[in-house]
């Protein structure tokens, strides 16, 4: 791992596009050729907003790449994401990436993928969907979100071939979570490979359901508070069967079987 040839790099990158996709959710496209060239689905970048306020860079999943461009999806939560949401086209930010270990597409003859996205957790799965569909996989997306107004424009974001089942938590009448969707369809997909991203409670619930059905081919993308994003601070750990692992370096994607789910 004597990585003198850098796996990731720091680049000052221009915002090419900043578009409001849904309530408090934005799509930002950057011109970042070096990152775009290397990034794989499931990897992320660190975006530095502000000087000392906020101090730390903010991690965002790479959500799409093409030629010199990468896109991220930003949900407004606090200071950092608000500032990003206000970014002017033409403005530049320091980006560090691509970081972390991404998803692995199944080898052999498993061609069915199920992506399970909770809210903005769609971001890395979107990139995966594009890559996988290029490579001839069949993709089903289960997507749940809080309400209609923050619901992401899936048609716009995803390749055509993806089969979508979605649900909204706070809609009058039929409501539920993405984990309810999963419950309904899990039997159909027992031989598929699962890719999951969303809040921790949702990851845990999804893992539980899959485990009960003895489905082991499942990769989970984790979020954890970060500072460096490249393995230096040991700040972003998740408890695995081999002890604490860094979400930013050994993750953010982990096999379901690696994680000590009781700690989540």
């Amino acid at each position: 791992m004597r990585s003198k040839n850098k796996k990731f790099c720091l680049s000052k990158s221009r915002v090419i596009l900043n578009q409001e996709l849904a309530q408090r959710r934005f799509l930002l496209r950057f011109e970042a050729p070096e990152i775009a060239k290397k990034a794989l689905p499931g990897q992320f970048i660190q975006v530095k907003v502000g000087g000392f306020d906020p101090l730390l860079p903010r991690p965002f999943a790479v959500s799409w790449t093409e030629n010199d461009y990468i896109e991220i999806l930003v949900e407004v939560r606090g200071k950092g994401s608000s500032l990003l949401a206000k970014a002017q086209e033409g403005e530049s930010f320091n980006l560090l990436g691509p970081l972390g270990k991404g998803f692995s597409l199944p080898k052999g003859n498993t061609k069915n993928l199920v992506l399970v996205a909770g809210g903005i957790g769609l971001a890395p799965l979107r990139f995966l969907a594009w890559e996988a569909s290029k490579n001839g996989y069949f993709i089903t997306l289960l997507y749940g979100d809080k309400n209609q107004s923050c619901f992401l424009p899936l048609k716009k974001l995803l390749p055509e071939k993806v089969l979508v089942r979605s649900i909204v938590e706070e809609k009058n009448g039929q409501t539920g979570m993405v984990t309810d969707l999963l419950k309904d369809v899990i039997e159909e997909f027992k031989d598929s490979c699962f890719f999951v991203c969303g809040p921790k409670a949702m990851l845990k619930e999804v893992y539980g359901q899959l485990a009960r059905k003895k489905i082991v081919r499942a990769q989970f993308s984790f979020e954890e508070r970060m500072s460096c994003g490249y393995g230096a601070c040991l700040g972003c750990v998740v408890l695995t069967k081999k002890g604490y692992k860094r979400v930013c370096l050994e993750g953010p994607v982990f096999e379901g079987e690696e994680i000590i789910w009781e700690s989540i």
Partner: protein
Amino acid sequence: MGIDLKVKIGSLELNSPLILASGTCSLETFAFLKPEETGAVVLKTVTLKPRQGNPPPRLAETPAGLLNTIGLQNPGVEKFLEHEIDLYPSSYKLVGSVGGETIDEYVEVAKKLEASNRFAAIELNVSCPNVNKGGIEFGRDEMLLLELVKEVRGAVSLPLWVKLTPNTSNIEKIALETSRAGADALVVTNTFVGMAVDIETQSSRISTLSGGVSGPAIKPLALYLVYRVAKNRNVAVIGGGGIFNFRDALEFLIVGAQAFFVGTAMLVNPLAAKEIISGLKEWLAGHGFHSIKEIVGTFREPS
């Protein structure tokens, strides 16, 4: 630009005054450094036995600061020497940081690190606020600290650096006595104890009650401590705390630090070290200096 970056910390010559702080760099960091511009890299503190570290969340952002509670996660000195040390490039001066709960543990770890022949110096971390035993107790209990320094001094012949805690009221005295007990350099300072509360859950924003605050927020506090310690001209001082750019580094050199360390800045921007060195060179050249040493201790006291 013809600026001589070399500095001496006791008998040890360093390529530059810039030292990478313990706990804020890993193998990945080296891709962003140049050996000829790097004074030394202090590796993450190791202890005798493996330490799992504290549960997440381990980090919280504070105004211009970072609150951490890593809890000295490390594989233990043996595994570290067996599996990890060889991964580090040999073109850098490495410093082994030692933590422990008893004096014997410190001594044993220090001896093992020395025996590996991979280190240019040993740094005693007597000041980590994030572990229950050891750590900060040594930093605050003067008698214990002096005994610790003497014991380690007697056991190893590598240059010995002692990293002091800022969480004390008489740092000058501790510094003076530590240097008399055999420290070749004092590293000032470790993180300040701090706390952050999540108002929604009425609980700590990190997994422990309190943690250590680093970053720009602590710079004026750290600078003052470095000034006070550096007034005693008999021991080398490596100063830091919140250094983010070359101007910050110059402040520490001016008040008397022979070298400075950079921690949190590298987490925010892995090019910070390179940028600091090039900024220093340019500023010094622009101001008619020829070497780093000329700016050290040039502080003019107010009348």
